[in-house]
């Protein structure tokens, strides 16, 4: 008899907890992939495609699904580290196939050479190039992510990537002047 009671009790408990879990799974259901969203937030959003994916979000998705975390060239080691922290994996060095230089750049169109082919406009992932067919194009520097996707399609090579100009707003103190001496 006691066995029956025990079984009943535990069965009841199981049912109760099952119901609780079921309710919780419905009530607190998380829409979408939170990990992907978090990774996406860490990526620089240059949409450059250097990782081999068409944009940062697809790469975030790929990383969430197990792809290597060291493919984001614009993000650099900082991004790798952050993604590693987020995912609880070891930070690995930047994929060697990727450019190491990740100083912020923006595209610059040498306007004298521009023939107005609109190819760069079509290539720009963030619509940061303005212009029309047979009209000179120019880059909206504030919108340019420096992905350099527009450089390749230009038939006259009139687009170059220039480092972002330093202004008072983005100026950085030079810390190299400060020397650190280790105490023995």
């Amino acid at each position, binding site marked *: 008899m006691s066995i029956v009671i025990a079984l009943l009790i535990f069965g009841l408990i199981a049912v109760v907890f099952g119901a609780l879990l079921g309710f919780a799974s419905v009530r607190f259901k998380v829409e979408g992939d939170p990990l992907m969203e978090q990774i996406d937030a860490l990526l620089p959003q240059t949409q450059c495609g250097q990782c081999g994916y068409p944009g940062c979000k697809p790469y975030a998705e790929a990383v969430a699904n197990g792809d290597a975390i060291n493919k984001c060239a614009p993000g650099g080691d900082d991004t790798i580290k952050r993604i590693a922290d987020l995912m609880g994996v070891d930070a690995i060095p930047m994929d060697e196939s990727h450019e190491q230089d990740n100083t912020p750049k923006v595209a610059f169109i040498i306007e004298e050479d521009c023939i107005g082919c609109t190819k760069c406009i079509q290539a720009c992932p963030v619509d940061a190039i303005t212009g029309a067919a047979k009209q000179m194009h120019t880059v909206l520097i504030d919108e340019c*992510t420096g992905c350099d996707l527009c450089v390749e399609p230009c038939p006259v090579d009139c687009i170059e990537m220039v480092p972002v100009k330093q202004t008072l707003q983005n100026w*950085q103190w030079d810390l190299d002047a400060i020397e650190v001496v280790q105490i023995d």
Partner: protein
Amino acid sequence: MESVIERIDKNKFFSFSGGIHPPQQKFLSNDKPIRPLSLPQRLILPVQQHIGNVADILVKPGDKVLKGQPLTAIATPMTVPIHAPTSGVVKEIKKASIAHPSAMAELCIIIEPDGDDKWQPRKINTDYHQLSKADLVAKIAQAGIAGMGGAGFPTNIKVNSQAGVKYLIINAAECEPYITADDLLMREQAPTIADGIEILDHMLEPEYILIGIEDNKPEAIQALKTVTKHLDKVRVCVLPTKYPTGGEKQLISALIGKEVPSGSLPIDLGVIMQNVATVFAIAEAIIHDIPLIRRVVTVTGTALKKPQNVWALLGTQVQHLLDQCGYQHHDQQRIIMGGPMMGFTLPSLQVPVVKITNCILAPTNREISPASKEIECIRCGQCAEVCPSNLLPQELQWSAKAKDYDQLEALNLSDCIDCGACAYVCPSHIPLVQYYRVAKAEIKAKKVQEAKAEKAKLRFEARKKRLEKEKLAREEKQRLAAETRKNKTKSSGATGAVAAALARVKAKKAQQDASENNANAGSSAVNEEPATNSVKSAAAAAIARAKAKRLAAQKTTEKAADISRFQRPNDTNDTSATNATDATYTETVKRPSDNKPEGEKVDSKAAAIARIKAKKAAAEKTNVVSTSEPKAANAPVETQTQEDTHALKDTHAQKNTNTDAKADNKPDAKAAAIARIKAKKAAAAKTNVVSTTEPKAANAPVETQTQEDTHALKDTHAQKNTNTDAKADNKPDAKAAAIARIKAKKAAANKANLDKASSEIEPVSKEPTSEKAVTAKPESQKVDVEKANPTTASSEEKIVSANTVSETKATSSKSAAKTTQRKSTANKTSASKTAASKTTAKVKPATKKATSKTATKSAVTKKASAPSNEKTVTKKAAEKAPTKNTRTATKTVTKKTNAVTKTADQANTKAATKTTAKSAPKTATKAATKTAAKSSAKKTTVKSTVKPATDKNANAETDIQTAAQASEKVTKTKTPATKTSATKTSTTKSTVKKAVTRKRTTTSETKVKAATQKASATRKTSTKAKQADLFDESALASDKNNNAQVKEKTSKTLSAEEKKAKIAEAVKKARAQADAKKQQKADS
């Protein structure tokens, strides 16, 4: 607890935590009055000297400007204008190095003073009380006043606060060890400062005005107390000297004992703080209309001979200031802008004084040692003790070195005021504040980057969305274009098909005319002569055909014209396509005519070729028609079926040719030809009618045309069938039957025409694809059935009678003609059944009876016809049955299935009659159900029929086969050899028997004929409804026939050909029926 004011009145003050007491160096400069400087060689005025946005420049190089003239405009509240500090000429506007640790070049207006120092017209305002608050704020804004304590926050915004200001604090603490600018200003300009305080009081209406001042400025304190004696609100609060009392938050804590929470502003505590220099500037701006063009700068340091406070015009280069104060340059000399605690080393002496510059410090190395080498933190914790913001400088330092910005934010780095107290006390000489500055800049940059990334993300997403939208739009456009193209091709193809059909019909007409005489003669000679007149008649037929085709071509052109008229104006292609088709036709027509002069045989060949071509074309058209079906054909089976159908059609075409060829050889063929011609005439008439009616269906011209083409083809088939019948004429029974059929068809054609004419709207509803047609069929069937009902009733009776007669006669065996008739009858009956069931329950019983009778007859016939055949038939049936089922799945197949169903119905009925009376009603019920459920129901019926007894299927199939066989037999009968070949086939035996029987039973045949006629009429009506079904059926039948043919072929090629022809004929019949149905559908 005493209030803040009570405490202040008692000279009791709060204190802020931390703070340091660096050695005071104010004595260097606080004992000399403020000295006005000589005009510098040039003034460099950075456009932006404040926190906020860059203003628009109002001047251009070469402009003459007067003192106090604004150089930039106020665009937004966060922009502060700059003014010409003296009269002169705008030399250039360019980027120049500014007072910033980076010595970065920023846009500057460079003015060359003319030495006149001529003011722009000023309006001195003695009574500012007359002005509204808004006016005062505007004046302050126009005066370009920004916080002169160090931050450069636009003052107009600060003084434009809402009501509720409790304390207005005037910051006169000036805690930096070297700076005495405010001290001197207070000493010398106390009345003006008092005016400024009154103005602010007027504007802000605070409860109290607290002047915070350190106790190391006794003269200034005295001066302020003197000038503010009359102001009750004002309290001069003398605070102990401690760095950094002059910090906004620190001063607030010290005065009112409240800490400004992190992330909020003093105004949240009801406090507004103004620097004393700002207050002075406000007073000057409001009262004397002097914009902010100069300021007091402490130029101090032991490296200077004459450290002093000077009135420096904004834009004066640091070099000039130093020069005025006895500065002797040497390479190691550092010049610090700002105080020793918070200032920065200037990278160049050419930078200008700006609104926030309060001190230029030129210390000796002994005074302030150059940045000593940093060594490791020893965790002494002194930095934390002195931090006025209660932060943890040590941890901040580590995090800053590790670039752990999240941690820095967690440690509230943003609350650091860069006072440098921590660095001052650090025994390891760690430039902590430098690390913080860097970290702050990094964090700021990171935030900017994040914002940019967010923007980029949004833009990327937006672009993706846009591209997606564009892609969809493009696809839609392409799809529409493709559709239009397809429609065009279809219409052109359809036109071609129609034309071909017409041509054929006409040719046949002509043939008929030409060979009528021959036929008369031929019919008599049919049985006797194997192939005497064949060549001649064939030639004649060919000629006739060619003529007919010409006519047809003309007609086609007319049609095309009509069509083009009714089609959309845009569809020029259609017309062109039609023209092309016409051309093709003409070609086809021409060839025979060209060939005519040549040998008759050649003619016949040519005619045959022409025919073949025409048929091919027709077949193609049919293909086109059927191509629309494939849409419904998801299953390969269907496609196959269609292909089969196409193949069959082709075969038919060939068969027709063959038949023609045969006809050439055989006298019988003449008769057949005649029959054909007649039928074709009828068909032509139909087609004509159709063509005339077509235009009305202009909305769906293509479809209609296609359908019509199909109809035409079917007609042709029907005609061929007729031909076969005509061939059967050799045998009296067959002839009679054929004649009857032909007549019936004519009638049917007329009906069809009428139907079409009456209901041309249907075509429109009749899908572009045959699918729709299929779906539409059931409906049309109903209509047809309804129409047919009256006829059906009568015809049924007749049929019944005929059947009965035939039954009796056929007890032993039935003739091929009968079989054929039976089929038709059966079909009719089935159709009528369906019709009856659909329309009324009353009709049903009769129909059932009739059907059952017919069924019985046919069943009997079958039985009688060939016991041996049964096996083969059964096998075939079995084979076919599955195929049928499979096909049934598809709509296209449904047609066939319907046809089969009909046959199956008959078979069922037969079987039912045989077995039990019950089954007959069932069948009837089934039929009814079918009608209701339409195609699906039909399928079910077929299945059910198949299930009950393979025999039934076999019967049904047998019917078809028998028909084919019959025709074959007829042909065989014509040719002895053929007979023999046919005899080989199991079916052949029965056929022969039937043939024999036919001869015997002429009377029955006659009856049968009558019945057939009626039935044919009925058929046509009902057939129309089921046309598609029949079509398929015919295809099936033809398949079967083909199989049979193949077998036969192995035995004899001739027989095979004949069989094929027969099959083709059968198929054609079925098609004709289908056409009729379609027409009816269209009508309905």
